[in-house]
């Protein structure tokens, strides 16, 4: 059995780790609240944009065309993978990577070339280790993502698509369900697939100056918004996953300290019993 001193040291170490995980849990909880807020406040814009785009396509018909809608024969596919910069978020990154890798291998099996755009250090490291080409990396995304963060990514994939570097662009991210559950998801963002119109109110719009111009203004916003909402959801999910993981770690630390305390007391008792036996034995020998 380990000596009392050793156990004591172990207890202290576990307690310290517990303090750290507890602090991280609290930090993640507050970041999660803010990130969730930004997911919610981004919703009206997202819905409106989708709504208008679908009605625009419905009322302008197939007459409209735009470089971002152009479907080409696929040779090279870009995958934008959203992961975190830091670990300690439970299975969050592993789940995203599993999804991303499956998609990438699927594309390769179809004979496409693959390029990776890594958002977050974990995504970069994962694909670097497997010797994929990292075409671009974005490692400085804020904890509460702003439109500026998303714009840099959007600009990059848009340019890559228009110049023919990629013939399709997919984004892989964790859809935010709750703090406990994030579901990895892959969405094709380029060429833009226009959403189906839900409310066929058939308004006859006047387009100013023309359907093409309006479309050419909406499509980049739509694309940017898809990237932005993926980013906000991914971040909210990351904070949620970290909070859950750290909460479990704190609980484990408390349980472990309890067990070690018991062990320590037992060792102490055993030592005392031992001493008494020795003293008694010594006294008996004197008689």
């Amino acid at each position: 059995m380990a000596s009392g001193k050793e156990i004591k040291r172990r207890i202290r170490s576990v307690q310290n780790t517990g303090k750290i995980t507890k602090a991280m849990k609290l930090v993640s909880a507050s970041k999660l609240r803010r990130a969730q807020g930004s997911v919610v406040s981004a919703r009206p814009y997202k819905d409106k944009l989708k709504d208008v785009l679908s009605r625009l396509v419905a009322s302008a018909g197939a007459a409209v065309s735009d470089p971002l809608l152009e479907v080409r024969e696929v040779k090279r596919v870009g995958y934008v993978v959203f992961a975190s910069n830091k670990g300690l978020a439970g299975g969050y990154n592993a789940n995203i990577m599993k999804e991303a890798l499956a998609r990438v291998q699927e594309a390769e099996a179809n004979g496409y070339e693959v390029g990776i755009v890594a958002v977050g250090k974990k995504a970069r490291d994962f694909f670097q280790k497997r010797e994929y080409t990292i075409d671009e990396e974005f490692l400085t995304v804020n904890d509460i993502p702003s439109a500026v963060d998303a714009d840099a990514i959007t600009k990059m994939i848009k340019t890559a698509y228009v110049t023919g570097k990629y013939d399709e662009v997919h984004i892989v991210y964790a859809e935010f369900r709750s703090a406990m559950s994030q579901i990895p998801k892959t969405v094709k963002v380029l060429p833009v697939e226009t959403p189906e119109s839900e409310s066929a109110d058939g308004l006859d719009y006047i387009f100013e100056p023309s359907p093409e111009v309006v479309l050419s203004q909406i499509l980049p916003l739509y694309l940017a918004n898809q990237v932005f909402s993926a980013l906000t959801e991914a971040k909210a999910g990351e904070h949620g996953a970290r909070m859950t993981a750290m909460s479990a770690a704190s609980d484990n630390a408390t349980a472990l300290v309890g067990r070690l305390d018991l062990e320590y007391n037992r060792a102490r008792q055993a030592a005392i019993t031992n001493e008494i036996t020795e003293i008694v034995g010594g006294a008996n020998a004197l008689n």
Partner: protein
Amino acid sequence: MADKTLKLEVITPERVALQDESTSVIVPGVDGELGIWPNHAPLLAGLKPGVISYKTASGTEKLVVSGGFVEVANNTISVIAPAAEKSTEIDFTRAEEAKKRALERIAKKEGIDMARAQAALARANARLSVR
């Protein structure tokens, strides 16, 4: 109907920047300013960086947008823009600096994206115009 009003909402990716009732709205269309009055026909128009001015019961208010587009339907005007700020929210020193930067880049003309510099200049000018 003289007291007929329009619902005006300005939505950006990060928030709903404005929700108000207005009697008439002027927006900066791609090909020039567009005035929108109640009972306007359904309209979808592209916007350029500029000022939206709208009349309310308490006077004329101004709001700067950085592009986007406007949808008019059923007496509701929805402006969807990458960014929008009320005149009281604008950081004029920052706008001044942005303008200076953009002008420098346009003057140099080398190795830069001309369209981007010009767009930045337009945004800065729009912000400064409501001072």
